């Protein structure tokens, strides 16, 4: 995707998220995976949710964080690639300047800026087993699925 001049968006309604106190909690209802992003990562996710262009996400980060512009851009691109690989976002491919105007963010005073750290996407998969679909190969004469032979009994 054209990262610098396009925008990305959340890949669908199966992705639910909330940004709370500089942390984004992102849940993929289809896969059972969930994610967290903190600080700059949460800001990038906010940009994705707002539908702003990638270059604007970088601009927002530069206003809030103290750091090398190339490093911020590179980290942003890298995170977006990760989010896309996880199918949390999709490239919209819109040309620059066609999206809704984003709210202006006042440039922080240099002394107010936070030191930029490359965001880390934390992924958790411990819930995936809850969404596993048991394969049904056969049904019995009454139309109900045949049960596995080794099922257990609670007992009396």
């Amino acid at each position, binding site marked *: 995707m054209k990262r610098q001049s396009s925008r990305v968006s959340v890949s669908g309604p199966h992705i*639910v998220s909330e940004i*709370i106190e500089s942390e984004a909690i992102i849940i993929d*209802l289809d896969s059972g995976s969930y994610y967290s992003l903190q600080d700059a990562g949460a800001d990038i996710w906010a940009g994705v949710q707002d539908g702003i262009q990638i270059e604007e996400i970088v601009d927002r980060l530069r206003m809030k964080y103290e750091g090398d512009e190339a490093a911020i851009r590179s980290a942003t691109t890298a995170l977006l690639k990760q989010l896309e690989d996880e199918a949390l976002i999709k490239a919209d491919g819109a040309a620059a300047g066609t999206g809704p105007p984003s709210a202006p963010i006042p440039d922080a005073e240099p002394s107010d800026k936070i030191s930029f750290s490359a965001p880390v996407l934390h992924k958790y998969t411990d*819930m995936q087993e809850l969404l596993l679909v*048991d394969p049904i190969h056969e049904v019995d004469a009454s139309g109900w*699925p045949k*049960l596995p032979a080794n099922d257990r*009994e*609670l007992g009396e």
Partner: protein
Amino acid sequence: MRSMRVGGRNCLPTTGNWASSPRTMHLRYESRTGSPVDADDRRSATFCQSAHLAFLDAQEAVGESDRRSFKIGGYELCLRFAGRALIQPMTKALAHLATEPSESPDLTICIWDSASTQTSMTTPSWSTDDYGVQGLISGFNTDRFQTLLQLANNTLNMLDHRKNLGLYWIPNARHVTYYEAISPLRTLLYWWMRRHGRQLVHAGAVGTADGGVLLPARGGSGKSTTALACLEAGLLYAGDNNILLSTDERPLQAYSMHNSTALHGIHLEERLPHLLPHIENPEQLGEQKAFAFLHKHYPTQMAASLPVRAVLVPRITGHRDTGLSESSLAASLSALIPSTLFSLPGAGRETFETLVKLIQPLPHYMLNLGTDLPQVPRVISELLRKFL
């Protein structure tokens, strides 16, 4: 109709013609004459009617029926049974909430199995392709109906919201899993309660009549250990795994659902040996968690509800001492949301947003669990005194 082999797994005959039953007219679901009727709703209503008739047939076949009433989340739940095979498995974990029946319960759930009643169940109206994630059945989940088949043992859960009627059917009562026995009717109650101001969450809740703490945590984080240590020290207990949170009351209320607990046997021996004599399944600890029904042993400490004053996320430190550290809403949500959301069939964005809204106003702490368990209730009690 009743010629099946008892205990047979694949021998249920197809059902007869329900339209010829004298009960059909009596149980006919009202149609919305003059307005468009959704095809899924119609199919669901037809199946629900047939399944309900199968329940009534089962009651008639065994010649005995039983009903038990419980007050859960402030609502009266009536469980109607055909035969006795499922009474114990479905009611032990609810026994602390038993109540006198009234003429108009808020929710009625019909519970039966085919094997012990030697009756057949109606044929499913869907194909194998319709079974989705967590057993939800495509085309049978509408605004009015919710339907799921637990594929591990073919347990049907169906709820008609309009009639406040639930159906719980299993081919053979002997195939009720231990997990269902310790958290019976979880899915049906979740579905019904969320439309009546109660949100089921994967969390524990302990405290006093003046206030309690909510204990959200992933499995293995010390949630049950914390709740059980508090119980042993005399605090009130609303649950250590499933709690109903009020969405329409302030302060936030944590309502009890189940009086059961389940722990890995080794944890029990090491940390809570006083519970060992109460374990219901000592012979099966190799393949099941150890479980116990706590109301039998702590009858005066079972709380139907507690006002929630704070959220404490337990985490095992390995150190001796237990302490609290201030935490964040984000940390509490990280502990609460995934295991709640993914364990509730059909839960999604709305549940997510509800959970955020519910616990946002509360103070949040990490409960740094030490190995000296008697400290745990002391730390929690001290915190709760601050809110008095």
